[in-house]
Structure formats: structure tokens, C-alpha cells
């Protein structure tokens, strides 16, 4: 357990020294600029635009970081051969993978917290009110990020970063489209297509279940059961992907 923490902290340190956090600066500028421009373009609800774009940016930046850093988690260690010295220590493979995962997931959470703070400041400046209710959307975003990160990690245990980046991106996109696809196909009379939609739906993570953004921004009540179920869904899915990564990584040679 302690060794996992050591590895996690080191991974976190790596992300700090690799200046991943510069992306936060980009986030701040982008969000500010966007919301100001859009706020001027739309008549009326400026604060809504800020919230919409803020949430979208938090999720998008999070996903980008999760993918770009996650895909190189394990593979980069092998490519740069840093893994030999690490794994020659008395640690097991699963400690290594979990340490890497937790370190990066911690990084992601810090990013989300900073971005959220930025969004709140912007909202406060515009409205003199802090929109605490946005957490109902941000917490599911965090869960989604964890899931995406686990997927990136899974791919990075056995394919090159470029390919795993592509694959993770595909999972992200498909994960958001399967629901639409299923609904669309349900109205058609094509059993083969329906079957395909079902297979897709149940074999890819359904990321739309974690999308509460629109409802939160519009102040529509979200049933607690749905909220809890969605989060448990994401958490279980993440654990499953992690277990799969461990299984694969544990079997392979570190050459």
C-alpha cells in the first residue's frame, strides 16, 4: 500500500515537472475568452453560457489530459526503459500499475479542482453568486475522467501510445454515441442493426449516463437514485478496466 503511494506521488510529481499544468493556463484563457465573446453574441442569459462552456471545458480538458498522459503511462516507461529499474525493486506489477493510475488520477482531480475554482470565480464576478449546484455535474465528470484514464491505461499496457490514443478517443466518442445510436436504431425495423446497437451499448461504457451538464445548468432536479446509480456504474466500470489492465500487464514480459 505504501509503495503504491510512493509510485503515485512520484507520478504526480512527474506531471507537475512535465508542466502538464500549463494546460490549465490555456483553459483559463480559453474559457474566459469564449464566455466573453459568446456572452456578447447571445442575447440574455450570459451566465448560462459561461456555465455551459465552463463545464464543457472542464470535461474536455480533463479528457484530453487523461488521454494524452494516460496512454503513455505504462508504455512510455517501457519505451524509455525506466521500468526496469522500477520493477526490479521489491514491488509487484499490480502495485506499479495502481501507483501510476492513482498518481495520474490525482493529477486529474487537482486539475478539475483548479478549473472549477476558475469557473466559480468567473461566475462570482458576473453574478455575485457561487453556483455550488454545478458540483452535480462536475462530480460525474470526474468519474468519467477516471473511466477514460483507466481505458487509456489499459491500452497503454499493450499497444503503442499513438494507437492507444486513437483507441481511447474512439472509446470516448463511441461511449457518448451508443445511447443515441440505440435510440435511433430502436425506431428502425432492422434486427441486425438493433443487435449491433445492443452489443455496442453493452460492451462500451455508456458515458452519456454521466452527462448531467444540461440538467444542472437548467436547474432541473436530478433524482438522487439516478445520480448514485450512474456514479456506481462508472466506478464499477473503472474497476473492471483496471482489473483487465492488471491482468494483461501481469502476464506480459517487460523486455
Amino acid at each position: 500500500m505504501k509503495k503504491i503511494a510512493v509510485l503515485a506521488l512520484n507520478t504526480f510529481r512527474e506531471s507537475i515537472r512535465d508542466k502538464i499544468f500549463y494546460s490549465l493556463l490555456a483553459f483559463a484563457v480559453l474559457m474566459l475568452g469564449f464566455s466573453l465573446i459568446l456572452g456578447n453574441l447571445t442575447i440574455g442569459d450570459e451566465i448560462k453560457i459561461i456555465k455551459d462552456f465552463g463545464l464543457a471545458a472542464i470535461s474536455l480538458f480533463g479528457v484530453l489530459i487523461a488521454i494524452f498522459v494516460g496512454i503513455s503511462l505504462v508504455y512510455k516507461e517501457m519505451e524509455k526503459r525506466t521500468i526496469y529499474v522500477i520493477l526490479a525493486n521489491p514491488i509487484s506489477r499490480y502495485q506499479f500499475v495502481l501507483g501510476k493510475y492513482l498518481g495520474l488520477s490525482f493529477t486529474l482531480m487537482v486539475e478539475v479542482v483548479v478549473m472549477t475554482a476558475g469557473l466559480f470565480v468567473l461566475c462570482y464576478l458576473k453574478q455575485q453568486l457561487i453556483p455550488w449546484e454545478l458540483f452535480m455535474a462536475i462530480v460525474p465528470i470526474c468519474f468519467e475522467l477516471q473511466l477514460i484514464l483507466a481505458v487509456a491505461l489499459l491500452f497503454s499496457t499493450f499497444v503503442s501510445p499513438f494507437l492507444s490514443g486513437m483507441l481511447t478517443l474512439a472509446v470516448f466518442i463511441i461511449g457518448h454515441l451508443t445511447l443515441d445510436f440505440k435510440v435511433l436504431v430502436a425506431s428502425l425495423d432492422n434486427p441486425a442493426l438493433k443487435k449491433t446497437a445492443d452489443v455496442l451499448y453493452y460492451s462500451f461504457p455508456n458515458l452519456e449516463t454521466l452527462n448531467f451538464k444540461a440538467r444542472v445548468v437548467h436547474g432541473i432536479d436530478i433524482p438522487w437514485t439516478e445520480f448514485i446509480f450512474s456514479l456506481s456504474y462508472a466506478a464499477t466500470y473503472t474497476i473492471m478496466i483496471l482489473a483487465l489492465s492488471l491482468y494483461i500487464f501481469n502476464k506480459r514480459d517487460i523486455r
Partner: protein
Amino acid sequence: MSTAAISISGVSKTYRTGFWGKKFVALDALSLSVEKGEILGYLGPNGAGKTTTFKVLLDLIRPDSGTLSIFGDPADQKARERVGYLPENPYFYMYLTAEETLHFHGRLRGMKGEARKKRIPELLHLVGLEHAKSRSLKKFSRGMLQRIGIAQALVNNPDILILDEPMSGLDPNGRKQMRDIILGCRDQGKTVIFSSHILSDVEIMCDRAAIIRQGKLQEIVQVSEMLDNKVAHWEITCSSLPENSPYEDCIVHKTKNQILLKTNGEVEAKKMIQKIEESGGRVLSFGPQRVNLEEFYNQSGKEEK
């Protein structure tokens, strides 16, 4: 039966490469054991399987068959607590400083804070990196990385050291330091196995040397006994050879002014000298040569072919 420090028995490993999983036998039923407190040199041509052996020992690579044990126990996570490893061309996290790297590895080996604080300055001193301890490894030279590599391997004072080409990349001074470190480890009762292409190093330091070729153990040489061995051949340096002499075959090396000859028996050599002097040549030097590792190494290579 006393337990060996490292015992490898019947280990085979086949790599599969490329799209079609083409097979390549890297280790072929390799058996080898390293006794407690000895220094074993591990020799073999490039691609013989030395690095592979080490990786199998450290569970980085899973063998197809065979068993590996360290002090009688399976070579697993627990056993690695007693092992320090220096990979060939060690790579570290470049964003860490030398000191941080050692602390990191110390933590991974389960060392407590105080123990690390005491041990790490000692190690930095030992490998001569005190001046660079808070420089990030990005700015380290190849040899400095090698030094930090050995320091890292020693961080928790392990009983066994596995060093993959420890001398590579080091300057003459560094080589001497590395030799001293390794010999010092033996004095502390540690067991060392290291691979090398520099035979003289092995000759100087090792108790035994193992030669591996194409994944098979070819020979184990008792280095100390070998050095006590009888004379292997005689060497004569002279200024010129008599014309049509029967010694053309004996020439090892020839420059403008000097010719180096090599012959097996003492009697033969004396005869040679006589002939040379009779024909007006000058003998510049003459003496016996003892068997060295190079000979063994080359011989076992020839037998193979």
C-alpha cells in the same frame, strides 16, 4: 546442501517477435548457480542472453520453463528485497534529481526515512556524485547515470548485486571506483554477478566466470585457479626473421621494426631464438605467457564452431 545465493535451473526463454510471432530462443535450458559471497563474471558475445538471464531473475521476463531461486526461495517480489540491480544503460526518471532518485528507490525498497537520510549521502560520496546531488538527471552524462545506477542498486544494502555491464560508459577513474565498489561488496560478504565484455576486469575481480553462448552455458572458469595455471605459451619479440624460416606460422603481429612470435614449448622457443640470432636478427624480448581469460573465451568460441 548449502543454499546458493542465486540458483537458476533449466531456464528456457523463447522470444516471439514480429507480426507472425517468429520464435527466437534466447535462453536454452540454462542452469547456473552463484554461491554466497562470490563474484561471478558473466561473459558471452553480444546477444548471448546475459541481459535476458538477469531479467528473468528479476521477474521482468517470465521464463517458459525452469525455476529460479534466491537464497533458496523463489525469485519473487519478496526475494527482490535482497537484490540490487543495475540494468545495462540504466534509465531513470529524468525529472528527478540524483538525491530524489535515491530516496525514491529507497522508499520502493521499504526503507524508513532516517535510514535513507543516513545512507544516501554515503552512497553519493561512494559513487562520487556529491557535487551533483541536486542536479536533475536530465543534465547527467552517460557515466554519471551509470554511477547513480550503482548507487541505486546499493541503496538498501542488498545481499546480492546483479550488475549488467557495470563498467560501460565510465571513465578510467570511474572504472577503478566501480571495481573498488564491487570488491568492497565482496568484503562485506555480498554476492555479485555482473556481465561484462572487458575480460581483464573479470580476471581481476571475479572468483569464477561463466561463459554463455546462444543461451546455453558453455563453461565455468575458476579464475583464481586459472591464474595459478602453468605457462600457456612463450612470446618472442625480434627485429627480423631468417629468410624462408619455418616460423611464418608463428607470427602474431608484425610492424616495421618488430615481429612478435608465439610458440608453445620452452624448448621450441629456445631453438627459435637460436635460429634468429644465427641469421643476424636481434631478440628484443622473450618470456613466458600465462593462460588468460581471453584464451579461454576464444577457445570456447572456437569449439562452438
